[in-house]
């Protein structure tokens, strides 16, 4: 029973990471009907910005302020990155065939994956051949001699618990933004019909930009949360997490905000149970088995509705 709960806790912890990333996929898909395949790499850039923010000038002592500064800093950097990607990679191609944007997304993805094998300091010599050399994410918080919580025999590192709380808080905040604010209503209107949204006076391009900023900031937060508990980061690690988060978004019904959250959690927990009770080498296969099952049995996702339109 203890083992069961331990897996649940681990699964939820990983699941919230998937969920945070999946939100970006789903929101962007909502407003642009584009699968932003570079989104997993934005998640990676989130962790890397945290790393550079945390190590530049020799770093500093772990503290709450420092953790907050690095997390917010990474979210801002990635928010800007999301803005730039949309503005300069996707917007000029908005009127072209869908495939053009998709290929561009893959190009942006490569650019980030391989660009981040270099360091941002121009004077440093480039190692030859450049490679995905792993880096170690700095410790943001020091919990002293008792770094883990324990209850009912389940062990949870405090940093994971904090990450979980932060992730859930961000999701609640996003849920509020999307369903309770003027911006969120505009975003849902754009995702339903951008042309008519324009007729309401909604600046459609600005809403699309903001959607990228929001989704990218969430991905950055996920990158920081993940790197705080698994500090080894490298430029290619966004690929797999990105793909899995994409599966989570499809699982919840792509374009559906609560669906992405549920899909992420569900995928994280499923993975953890299957890997925990069988073999951990199945972990990655599970996500894609889930994807295939969803596409076969319920292509609109668990929470998506087959669209009803009245004529």
């Amino acid at each position, binding site marked *: 029973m203890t083992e069961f709960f331990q897996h649940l806790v681990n699964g939820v912890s990983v699941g919230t990471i998937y969920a945070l990333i999946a939100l970006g996929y789903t929101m962007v898909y909502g407003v642009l009907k584009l699968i932003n395949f570079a989104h997993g790499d934005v998640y990676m850039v989130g962790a890397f910005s945290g790393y550079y923010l945390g190590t530049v000038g020799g770093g500093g002592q772990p503290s709450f302020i420092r953790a907050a500064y690095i997390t917010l800093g990474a979210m801002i950097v990635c928010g800007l990155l999301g803005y730039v990607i949309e503005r300069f990679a996707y917007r000029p191609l908005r009127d072209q065939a869908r495939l053009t944007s998709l290929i561009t997304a893959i190009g942006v993805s490569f650019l980030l994956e391989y660009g981040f094998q270099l360091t941002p300091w121009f004077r440093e010599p480039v190692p030859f051949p450049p490679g995905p050399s792993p880096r170690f994410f700095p410790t943001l918080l020091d919990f002293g001699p008792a770094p883990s919580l324990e209850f009912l025999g389940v062990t949870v590192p405090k940093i994971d618990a904090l990450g979980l709380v932060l992730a859930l808080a961000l999701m609640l905040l996003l849920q509020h933004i999307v369903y309770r604010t003027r911006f969120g*209503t505009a975003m*849902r209107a754009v995702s339903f019909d951008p042309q*008519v949204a324009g007729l309401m006076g909604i600046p459609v391009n600005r809403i699309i930009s903001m959607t990228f900023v929001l989704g990218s900031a969430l991905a950055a937060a996920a990158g920081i949360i993940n790197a705080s508990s698994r500090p080894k980061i490298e430029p290619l690690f966004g690929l797999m997490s990105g793909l899995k988060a994409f599966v989570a978004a499809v699982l919840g019904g792509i374009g559906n905000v609560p669906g992405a959250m549920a899909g992420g959690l569900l995928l994280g927990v499923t993975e953890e149970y299957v890997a925990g009770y069988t073999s951990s080498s199945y972990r990655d296969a599970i996500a894609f088995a889930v994807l295939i099952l969803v596409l076969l049995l319920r292509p609109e996702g668990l929470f998506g509705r087959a669209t009803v339109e*009245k004529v």
Partner: protein
Amino acid sequence: MSDAGPILEVKDLRVHYGAIEALRGISLEVSDGQVVALIGANGAGKTTTLRAVSRMLRPSGGQVRFRGEDVTRLPSHAVVARGMAHAPEGRGIFLNLSVRENLDLGAYLRRDRAGIASDVERAYTLFPILAERRAQVAGTLSGGEQQMLAVARAMMSRPKLMLLDEPSLGLAPQVVERIFGVLREVNASGVALLLVEQNAHKALQLAHRAYVLETGTVVMQGTGRELLASPEVRKAYLGE
């Protein structure tokens, strides 16, 4: 409330869909406070005209002046910000949002909460069924209810000019009466209307001026009364 200066001037408007030229140089005018009807057979270019005026699509030539300003190159959200509302063909209701959210989006550019709330109440009074359905997702409304919502939503921005694309399409006769009653009232309060209607008889009765379109050009124009009396119009559009 007729014959003030023009609130809308369209000059030699051209629109292409790929290689198809849907508008071949349309010119028309709406005077402040007037009702102008646009009639014509299916495919004549009525919807395209409205879409080019509100910049839902980019004209390939010509000019649109709204309240004295050239708006031909503005994005649609900037055009509507200058006081135009467009209830598009097919109603354009956000089926994923509630009735109330649809109405609120009509007032997206307004900041006066109290004024918006009172306009929502007015919409509910004009169309009581919308009040009953206010919290419901608009996708669950009947076609006629969606049509009422489209007209109500277009009023929410307090426009100076409303473009209406077949607001009575597919409605039961009493509902058509209700919509035309509302439009008459809206116009009486000083709002100009550019009205596209299949129901040419009703449109021409309401209109101060009317234009007849045929394959992307204006083939006839005059006062509503003149066109109602014209034998060609009676034959082609009034089914006589």
